[in-house]
C-alpha cells in the first residue's frame, strides 16, 4: 500500500465518530418517523403491527388539522416578514457602523441566543400577560379599562417568536452586507443616484443571499418552535408543533403524530423551495 492511501485511510478515523453519530442518530431516526407515520394506531400501546395510509387520510379529512397547519404557516410567514423589517436596519448598522458601540450592539444581538428559550418566553409572558407590564401601564395611564389581549392569542405568539428568531435574520443579512464593497455605493452616489435608488438597485440585490438565508432560517424555526407558542398561546391558541407534541406525549398517538409532523415539515419545505426559486429568479431578472 502506498503511503498516500494509508494516510487517507487514517484520516477517515477523524470523521468516523461524527459520521457514525449522524448516521445512526439522525438519518436512521428520521427514517423511523416516516415508517412510524404509516403504522397502525395502537390501542393502549403507541402503535400496532401492520401498515396503513389512514393517518394521512385522517389529516386530510379533518378540517381542524388543515386549518391549524395553515395558521402555523401564516404565523411563520408573518414572523419572517417582521424579522426582516426589524432586522435589516440593525444588520445594516452593524455591518457599516464604525463606532465604538458596535461591539456592544453586536453583543445585544447575540444575547438572546445565550439565554434559554424557556426564560425568554417567560419574559414575554411577564410583558404581555393580562396582569403584565404593558397592560398595567395602559390601565394606570387610563388608556384602557380592561386588559388588552396580548397573550393567549396569535399576536402574542408572533411578537415573542419574532424576538426569539430575530438574531437568525440579523446575522446572515449582516454578513451579506459586509460583503458589499462600499465603493459601489459611493460610485452610485457620485453618478447622482438617490438614497432610495441605491438601496433598491444595489444594496437589496447584493444582500439577497443573506436575506434569503435569514428568511429561510426564521421561517423554518418559527414553524417548529414549541416552547414559545406553548407558553404564550396557552391552551387557547395552538400551533402545529404544539399539537404534534401533545399528540405524541399526552395521548400517545405516535403514528398520527408522525403524520402530522411530516405534513408540517413537507408543506414548510415546499414553501421554502418555492421561496428560494422565486427570490433567485426575480433578482437575476432585475
Amino acid at each position, binding site marked *: 500500500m502506498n503511503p498516500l492511501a494509508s494516510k*487517507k485511510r487514517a*484520516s477517515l478515523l*477523524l*470523521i468516523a*465518530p*461524527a*459520521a457514525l*453519530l*449522524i448516521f445512526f*442518530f*439522525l438519518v*436512521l*431516526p*428520521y427514517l*423511523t*418517523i416516516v415508517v*412510524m407515520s404509516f403504522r397502525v394506531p395502537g390501542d393502549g400501546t403507541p402503535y400496532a403491527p401492520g401498515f396503513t395510509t389512514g393517518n394521512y387520510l385522517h389529516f386530510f379529512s379533518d378540517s381542524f388539522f388543515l386549518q391549524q397547519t395553515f395558521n402555523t404557516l401564516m404565523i411563520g410567514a408573518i414572523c419572517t416578514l417582521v424579522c426582516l423589517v*426589524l432586522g435589516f*436596519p*440593525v444588520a445594516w*448598522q452593524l455591518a457599516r457602523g464604525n463606532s465604538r458601540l458596535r461591539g456592544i450592539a453586536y453583543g*445585544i*444581538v*447575540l*444575547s*438572546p*441566543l*445565550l*439565554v*434559554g*428559550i*424557556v*426564560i425568554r418566553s*417567560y*419574559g*414575554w*409572558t*411577564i*410583558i404581555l400577560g393580562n396582569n*403584565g*407590564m404593558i397592560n*398595567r*401601564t395602559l390601565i394606570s395611564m387610563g388608556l384602557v379599562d380592561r386588559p388588552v389581549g396580548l397573550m393567549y392569542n396569535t399576536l402574542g405568539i408572533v411578537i*415573542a417568536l419574532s*424576538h426569539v428568531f*430575530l*438574531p437568525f435574520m440579523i*446575522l446572515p443579512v449582516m*454578513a451579506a452586507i459586509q460583503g458589499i464593497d462600499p465603493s459601489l455605493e459611493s460610485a452610485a452616489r457620485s453618478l447622482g443616484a438617490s*438614497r432610495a435608488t441605491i438601496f433598491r438597485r444595489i444594496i437589496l440585490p447584493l444582500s439577497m443571499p443573506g436575506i434569503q438565508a435569514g428568511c429561510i432560517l426564521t421561517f*423554518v424555526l418559527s414553524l*417548529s418552535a414549541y*416552547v414559545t407558542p406553548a*407558553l404564550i398561546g396557552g391552551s387557547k391558541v395552538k400551533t402545529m408543533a404544539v399539537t*404534534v*407534541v401533545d399528540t*405524541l406525549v399526552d395521548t400517545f398517538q405516535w403514528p398520527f403524530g*408522525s403524520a402530522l*409532523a411530516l405534513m408540517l*415539515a413537507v408543506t414548510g419545505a415546499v414553501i421554502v423551495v418555492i421561496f428560494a426559486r422565486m427570490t433567485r429568479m426575480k433578482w437575476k431578472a432585475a
Partner: protein
Amino acid sequence: MSKTFFTIFCLLIYAFLLAPIVVVVLASFNSGAFLTFPPQGLSLRWYVVFFHNEVFWRAIKTSLWIAAVTTVISSIIGTMAAIYHVQFAGKLKETVRVAMMAPLLLPEVLTAIALLFFVYTIGIGTQTVLPLIIGHVLITLPFVFINVSASLESYDVSWTMAARSLGAGPFTRFWRIMLPLIKPGVIGGALFAFIISFDVFTISFMLKSVGMSTLPIQLYDYLRTNFTPEAAAVSSLSVFLTLLVVVVTEKFLGLKIHRF
C-alpha cells in the same frame, strides 16, 4: 433627520431584543407575592425561596453535569470532524459540511421526535440518560464544528510539515502545534456547546428519563401552573451563570465566536 430616525429605530430594536431578559431579572427582585409591574419593592425574598427549593437545585445539578459531559464529547468529536473537513475531505468537503450542520438546520422538535421513536424502536428506550446525552451531543456538534473549522481555515499546513520534518510524531504535532493554534475556535465551540446544552428544551423534554428533569424542563413545568417571581429568580441565576461563563472564558482564554 432621516439619520436620526434610523438610529432611533435601531435603538428601539435593541431594546426589544433585551426587553424580556431585563424584565425577568427585574421581576426576580420583586418583593410582592405575584409578578406585578411596577415591582412592589425591592427584595431578595424570591432568591431565598429558590435557595431552599430542593427541586430546582437538583435540576440545576442535572443540567450542569449533562452540559459538561455533552461539551467534552461534542468538542472531541466535532474537532476531529473539523480537522478532517478542512485538511483531508477534498472533494467531499461540501458534503461533510452539510452533514455536520444538519442537526442545526433540521427542526429541533422533529429531531427530538425522531430520536424518541428510534430509541424505542431499537429497544434502549428512555430508561437511562443515554438518549438525552446523544441528543445533546447531536444538537451541539454543529457549533463546535463551525467554530473549529473557522480557526483551521487560517491554519497553515506547512507548520505541521515543519514539525514533521523535525521529527515530531502525529500526537506531538497535534498537541504542540495544531491545538494551541486553533485553541480560540475549540474554546468558542466548547463554550457554545455548554450553553446550548444547558439551555436546550425540546430535545431534553422528549428524551428525558422518567423522574429526571433539567433546569429548562423544571422551569417550564413550574411556569405552567405557578406565577410567583421564584421562576424569575431561577431564570436570573441562569442568565448570570451564562454571563459569567462567557466573561471568564473571554478574559482568560481568549475567544472568537463564529456562529454561522
